[in-house]
């Protein structure tokens, strides 16, 4: 009888903890949205931040985050695909491969602040890129690349062996088989993984403090010539992203409405990250359905 009572209590505790985790998540999201959403308006989303006055917005940081994400993905995706293809298709089972696997594991374990400091030394100082979007994008590439490699490797490994053999048996070179048979089949998984990775990149701040910088120049949103310093598209200008902006106003915000701005900006950030999450899931399911549907 005693064992049964203990069992019942223990199971109840486990279920309670599962519920508690759900509750924490719900409370977290609820709190962020409840506090932040009321502050979100078109004006808030488009106007310049203010340092000491009220009424500041998050227009430039929001734009910087999106632009930086695009830049990062342009650099990361081809590199990640290449290394992932190597790991799944060209790597032999030997010590070199074990070593590369270790490299990827270590690279993915580096704290993002360390990656940011590396970016400061190499991109900002050594290559004289200064605090700029491109420095930030390169640092985020280091941060994101191991994940991208893993996503690609798993997606390519998931392709049925018969598909690969079918390509090879037609007299296709290995590379052509990878490119035209295996990559298209792995595409849904690569896509889903990439969107999730993008969400992670979008919210990253520590790697950017000392690479993309903590401030933006006055941007002129009517000047789209990437070579002008005040052009939003200039990749060599410093840029404060949304996540960095949230950190900055929380730790040194002087504007009287700093808490509200932080809440609003956090809500915007979390909404975008949620969109990435749900978008990835939805897209993954949609592509899967399209592939398996027999009309």
């Amino acid at each position: 009888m005693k064992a049964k009572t203990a069992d019942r209590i223990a199971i109840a505790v486990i279920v309670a903890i599962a519920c508690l985790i759900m509750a924490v998540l719900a409370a977290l999201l609820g709190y962020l949205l409840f506090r932040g959403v009321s502050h979100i308006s078109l004006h808030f989303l488009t106007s310049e931040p203010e340092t000491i006055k009220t009424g500041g917005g998050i227009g430039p940081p929001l734009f910087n985050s999106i632009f930086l994400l695009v830049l990062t993905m342009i650099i990361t995706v081809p590199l990640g695909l290449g290394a992932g293809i190597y790991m799944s298709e060209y790597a032999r089972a030997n010590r070199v491969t074990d070593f590369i696997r270790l490299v990827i594991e270590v690279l993915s374990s580096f704290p993002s602040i360390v990656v940011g400091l590396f970016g400061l030394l190499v991109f900002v100082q050594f290559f004289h890129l200064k605090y700029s979007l491109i420095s930030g994008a390169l640092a985020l590439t280091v941060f994101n690349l191991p994940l991208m490699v893993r996503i690609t490797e798993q997606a390519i490994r998931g392709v049925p062996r018969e598909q690969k053999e079918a390509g090879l048996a037609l007299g296709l070179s290995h590379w052509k088989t990878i490119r035209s048979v295996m990559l298209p089949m792995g595409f849904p998984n690569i896509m889903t993984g990439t969107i999730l990775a993008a969400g992670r990149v979008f919210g990253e701040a520590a790697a950017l403090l000392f690479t993309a910088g903590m401030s933006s120049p006055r941007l002129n949103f009517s000047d789209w010539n990437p070579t002008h310093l005040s052009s939003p598209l200039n990749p060599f200008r410093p840029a404060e992203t949304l996540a960095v902006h949230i950190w900055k106003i929380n730790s040194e915000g002087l504007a009287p409405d700093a808490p509200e701005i932080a809440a609003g900006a956090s809500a915007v950030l979390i909404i975008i990250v949620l969109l990435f999450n749900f978008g990835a899931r939805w897209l993954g399911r949609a592509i899967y359905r399209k592939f398996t549907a027999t009309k």
Partner: protein
Amino acid sequence: MSETAFYTKDLSVFYGEKQAIKKISMDFAAREVIALIGPSGCGKSTFLRSLNRMNDLIAGVRIEGEIWIGGRNINHPGTDVVRLRQNIGMVWQRANPFHKSIYENIVFGPRYHGIRDKRKLDEIVERCLRKTALWDEVKDRLNGSALALSGGQQQRLCIARSLAVQPSILLMDEPASALDPVSTAKIEELIAELKKEYCIVIVTHNMYQAARVSDRTGFFLMGDLVEYDNTQKIFTNPSNRSTDDYISGRFG
């Protein structure tokens, strides 16, 4: 028998330390169907997959011996495997069409090998689909997904796809074992038809199928080629005791 299409000499395959097939010497004639039979694990599929060097993909595999095709030993390390495979079509147990349209499945190979002319490609598609008796069934939906076809149709499409690069040898690894009897019959008819142009090596666990479609039959047991002779002789008057045991269903 007519001209020899290719032959193997002392072909052995090792998985690590384990020898999967042991010094097999076999010859295959053009315009002939050769069936490879034997209990599962006897090495018949391994042997088949060595003939177009598909076993190279498996880590830890070592292949010894010679495979002579067109005056060249293709088991030589310097062989251009990619070009070799163009000459040897392959069909698998499970139909594996590319996730593309019917048309794209067939032109995929020829296009890669340099044919860009739309008219020529159309011709190839029609010729290959006619050869595999699919043309009338699919000619109105060439741009539809290959995955929408039935299992038997998919398998015939895969045969058509391999014909499109004009091989002279076709390797079939249990091509009908996943199909229903009607589709199986169609595949067998097709093999009889294709025999007029190709040398076909077919692995099958269905002895009736071997008896129906092949000219010669090789019986494999534990990595050895026990007996290789005219199909009729193998099935009526085998000279080896274990062959007799196997085809009369006493084991395997």
